[in-house]
Structure formats: C-alpha cells, structure tokens
C-alpha cells in the first residue's frame, strides 16, 4: 500500500514535468493550430542557458532563470517571425514541416562544438535535495518544487487567458484571425506575444527539468517534447487545464504501468491509452469538438 502511494507520487512528479512543457505547447497550438515541434528544443536551450549562466558565468540562480526565460522568449519570437509567419496563410502542413526543420536545425546547430557541444553534461543542482519520509511515504523537495511551480503557472496562465485584456485578445485571435483584426486587435503582435510566453514557459520547464533530472544535452528535448505533446493531445489540445490533466494522466500511466505491468512495455501502455481515449473522445478529454467545415 505504501509502495502504491509512493508510485503515485512518482507519477505525479513525472506528470508535472510533462505539464511544464505541455502548457507552452498547448498555448501555441490554441492560437495558431500549429504543432510547434521546435518547442522541445526551446526547452533544451532554456536548460542550457541556465546551465551556462550558473556553472560557467557564476550567476546566481535567481538571475539565471529569468535570463534563460528571456533568451528563449526572444528565440521563440524569432522562430515564429522567420519560419512560421511566412507560412501563416498556407496549408498548416507547410508550417509543420517548417517546424520540423527548425527543430532539426536547433538540435544539430547546438550540438556543434562551438555552440553547446554534443556532450552530456551533469548539471549542478541549485539547491540541495532534501528527502522526507513520512511513515514510509517518501517525497523530496524537488517533487514539491516542480508540483508547486506547475500549479502556480497553471493558475497564472488560466487567469491571464480568461481575465486579462491580453487573454481576451488571444482568445479572439484563436477564434478567428480576420474578425479579430477587424476588432482592432494586432494579430501579429498577439501571436508573437504567445510565442514569447510559450517559449519562456518552456525555458522555465527546462530549468526545472534539469534540476529534477540533472543532465543535459542538445537532443534532450525530443522525448519530453513528444510525451508532453501527446499529453496535451490527450487532454484536448489548445486547452490549458486539459494539458495539465493529460500530463498528469500520462505521468501516472507511465509510472504505474512500469511498476505494475511491465517496464519494457510502458510506452506500449501509455500510447495505447492515448489511442483509446482518442477513439472514445476524438478531441481529447477536455477538448471541444472543432467546428465542422461546411
């Protein structure tokens, strides 16, 4: 029984980590309906910038995190400007291919020796790991920090999107670009803003991820990015609470199937559940069915 609780806590941590990435994914998707494959790579860049600023330049952690978020926000906006905007009114697949190109470009570019280099680097943790044991139930400060961060981010995002003027503009753009423009909304600016926000979130995710799993390399973004995206789809892509819910489910399924079914087949279980959920509810758990084209 105690072990089961421990496993559920493990799943919670993994799910929260997925959620860190999935939130950014889902925001960008919600507004321009683009699977931004480069998101996982922005996440990687965020982790690297934080690593270099603390380990190489000796900056304190509370400066390194905002710095890496700022760098990634600029990176995200640049990617959007150069690689996605020219394709905005083309078929969506064009932008998707461009996103794959950007993703490969960042991965191979940063693994060049004079950029980040290909090595796996051990990341020094910004704080000591503390482990608590309450009647056999174990948890660590990392789990707490990751979980709290995710909940704070989720609440803040939700507030921003539903209560602020900017959020209203974002929702308007996501409904209909043209109508939004007619209402006097600067669509380009809103999209840039969304990318900046999503990329800054990815950077924060990258920093926390490398605190939880202290190792970074230029290809580290692929798998977490993929799992997070899958989680976002599971929850209903474009929907912020959905991304959170999907991530938590993915995390739990991953951990519990590895623990109680078969560690070899854990990916089989998690993706089977994804397919099953989509078959029962084709737009994801919290997603609304998209408008049919008539």
């Amino acid at each position, binding site marked *: 029984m105690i*072990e089961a609780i*421990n*496993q559920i806590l*493990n*799943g919670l*941590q*993994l799910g929260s*980590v997925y959620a860190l990435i999935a939130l950014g994914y889902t925001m960008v998707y919600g507004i321009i309906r683009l699977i931004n494959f480069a998101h996982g790579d922005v996440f990687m860049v965020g982790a690297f910038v934080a690593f270099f600023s603390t380990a190489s330049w000796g900056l304190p952690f509370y400066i390194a995190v905002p710095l890496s978020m700022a760098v990634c926000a600029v990176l995200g906006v640049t990617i959007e400007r150069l690689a996605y905007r020219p394709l905005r009114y083309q078929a969506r697949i064009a932008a998707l291919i461009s996103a794959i190109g950007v993703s490969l470009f960042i991965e*191979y570019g940063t*693994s060049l020796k004079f950029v980040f280099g*290909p*090595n*796996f*680097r*051990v990341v020094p943790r910004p704080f000591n*790991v503390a*482990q608590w*044991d309450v009647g056999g139930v*174990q948890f*660590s400060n990392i789990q707490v920090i990751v979980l709290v961060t995710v909940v704070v981010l989720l609440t803040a995002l939700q507030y921003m999107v539903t209560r602020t003027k900017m959020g209203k503009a974002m929702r308007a753009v996501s409904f209909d670009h043209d109508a939004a423009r007619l209402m006097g909304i600067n669509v380009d600016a809103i999209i840039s803003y969304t990318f900046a926000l999503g990329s800054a979130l990815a950077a924060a995710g990258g920093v926390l991820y490398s605190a939880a*799993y*202290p*190792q970074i*390399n230029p*290809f*580290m973004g*692929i*798998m*977490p990015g993929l799992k997070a995206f899958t989680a976002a789809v599971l929850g209903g892509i474009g929907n912020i609470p959905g991304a959170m819910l999907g991530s938590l489910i993915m995390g739990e399924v*991953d*951990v*519990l199937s*590895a*623990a109680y079914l078969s*560690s*070899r087949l*854990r*990916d089989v279980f998690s993706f089977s559940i994804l397919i099953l959920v989509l078959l029962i509810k084709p737009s994801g758990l919290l997603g609304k069915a998209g408008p049919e084209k008539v």
Partner: protein
Amino acid sequence: MRFPRLFALVAIVVLIPAVALSGCAGGGGKDKNTLRVGVVTPLTGDVKTFGESTKNAFLLAMEQAGVTDKGGKIGNVPVEFTIMDDRNDATEGVNVATKLISETKVQAIIGSVTSKVTIAISNVTNPAKVVQVTSTATNPKVTVEDGKRKAFTFRACFIDPFQGTVGAKFALNNLKAKTAATLYDQSNDYTVGLAQYFKEAFEKGGGKVVFEASYGKDDTDFSAVLTKIAGLKPDILYLPDYYQKVSLIGGQARGKGIKAVFLGGDGWDSSDLDFKAMDGGYFTNHYSSDDPRPEVQTFVSTYKAKYGSVPDALATLAYDATNMLISAVKSTQSNDPEKLREYLASGTFSAVSGTIKNDANGDPIKAAVILQIKDGKQKYVATVNP
C-alpha cells in the same frame, strides 16, 4: 511533353554531382602498395560523443605511427585514411562502408562503434574481403553469425558474455553479494546482453537476481522501477549502460533510498560520469589509467596533452583497434587484406587494454579490471583473467 523547369533543376542538381563523383572516384593513391584505411564512426547523431572519442584516438594512433591526414608511411607501406560518419544508423553505416570499399577502395576499415552498425558493416566487408577492426562492438554476433565465423572482422574489446560474467563473479566473490537487481536499456543490445550474462553467471554462482527491469533509450525518469527495487533491498544494483544513463539512474536510486552497491560495465568509463552520484560503485573495464605499464601511461598523457581530457573507454579501445591494424601492417609490410587478416588472427598485441590475443572467433582473450568510483576518481581494485 512539358517537364516542369523545377524538375529539370532538381535533376541537374542531383545528377551532376553524382556522376561527377562517381567518375572521379577510385582513391587518391597511385601507388599500388598504398594501404587505404577507412574509419566508420558516428560523428553526428545520438552517440556523437562516442564517435568523437573514437576519431580522436584513431588520429592519435596514426600520428604516432607517422601517418597524418595527408598520408604517411608505416615501414615501407604508404598509408592514407578517410573518416566517415555513420550517424549510428545501420543503413547509413552500410552506405558509408560501401562507399569506402567501392569508391575509396580501402583495404581496411576501423569501426564502427555500436554493435548494430558494426554487424551491418561486417556483412559488407567480408564479402569484399576487406579487413575490419571494430573498437567497441561487444556483441558476439559481430564476428560470428549463425555459427559462421566472419573471417575478416576483428575487435579490440572483450565480448558481452565475458564482461557480464566477470561482473557477476566479482559481486559474488569479492562483494559477497547474495541478491541483485538489474536495470538496462531494452533497445540497446549491449545493455541487454550484459544484463543477461550477468544474471546467468550470478545465479549459477548461487546468487539470486530478485528484480529485472528495463527502460527506453530516451527515458530520464526511473522512479517507478527504483521504488520497486528500494522495497526489495538487493545487495547489488547492476547498471550495464553508458555513463550518461547510469549517472541519472544512480542519482535517482540514492534519492529513493536504495543502499545497494552499484555495479556496471565499461560504459561507465568517462570523465563525464557523475562521480558524486556513482560514488562507491564498481565497474568492469578494459584497463586502469593508473596502471604503471608504459603503454598505458604514454597513451593517457599524450591523449590528455592533445585533446585536454582523460581518454574514455571508447577512445582507449579505438586506439587499440588502430594499433592492432598498424602492427599488422608493420609486421607484414603489406597492404594485402589477406595477409593483414592472417596476422590479426594469429598475432599477439601489446595494447593499452592489456595483451590481446584473438581466439578462433576473432574475439580477444584478455584480462578485465575492476575499478571503483571513489572520491571523484577511479580507483583500481582488481584484475580478472579470463
């Protein structure tokens, strides 16, 4: 008949270089005695760092033998080499090996690094009668497939069954372990093999493997299985993966309160290992950098001087593989693959990783050493002879 202009353009762009290249192919050396060596190693892709180490060590060995990328001579034999990237992809590996053999006309290939690519390449080199020496492909199938010895393929490393057995014996006899858990990468035959042979030997010696689990290539979270293992309290946690993965697993295992002694294989040997997380762990390796033998000390110091880091297992074995070929050239004074093959099969090589003598399968018979991770350093513990 309207051909879109763009198509014409694409055709030109693709075909001209193709034809041009195939025309001018055929290796640079005009000398009939020239030995052309090809290196196949992953210089890009997921195990790029392995490829870099391999390339560095190859260049160092060649340089010491008097051959640079502009060519040179070993004894009376002029030597040239070409380095190619296989991206750790079997298909690419076959393409590249075919290119080296049919276009550059190499007589010998060093490589590749992982077993899957090396096995694929061995099926190209053997029909073409090109000598192949791999540094680190440890799977038995590299040299023997379906009971048939691939006569032109050799390696510098010991094979998985030997290393797994050495690890198990060390756990039983020296660490007095009774129980063990194994954790390996299901998509990597190297780790699958080590875990399997470790288990066989460990259980034959009276121990018990209480838990076996695996993970995917890109997993970073091992909490589920580690929580399980923590509950079972084994004496040993056998982690036969490369340094990147075991660093992550080690840290998380201690976080879950696992007190077991970590034990692993040569994949641990790297200065990028997380020494703090793996402190107290033991691993089987090809050599110890503290070994006073001159081969070891010269290699470690020259490598360090040239590349600024301590050579890892991949570099060491690539250095040995290259030197096996070089000494074959030295003794035979020939570029004939048949003669080189004969020498490699019968000769004895005094290498950094010990004295290498190949058995009938082309697998080296050599000693393994046990090292311990202690206070941020590798400490020599024991030598195990086969």
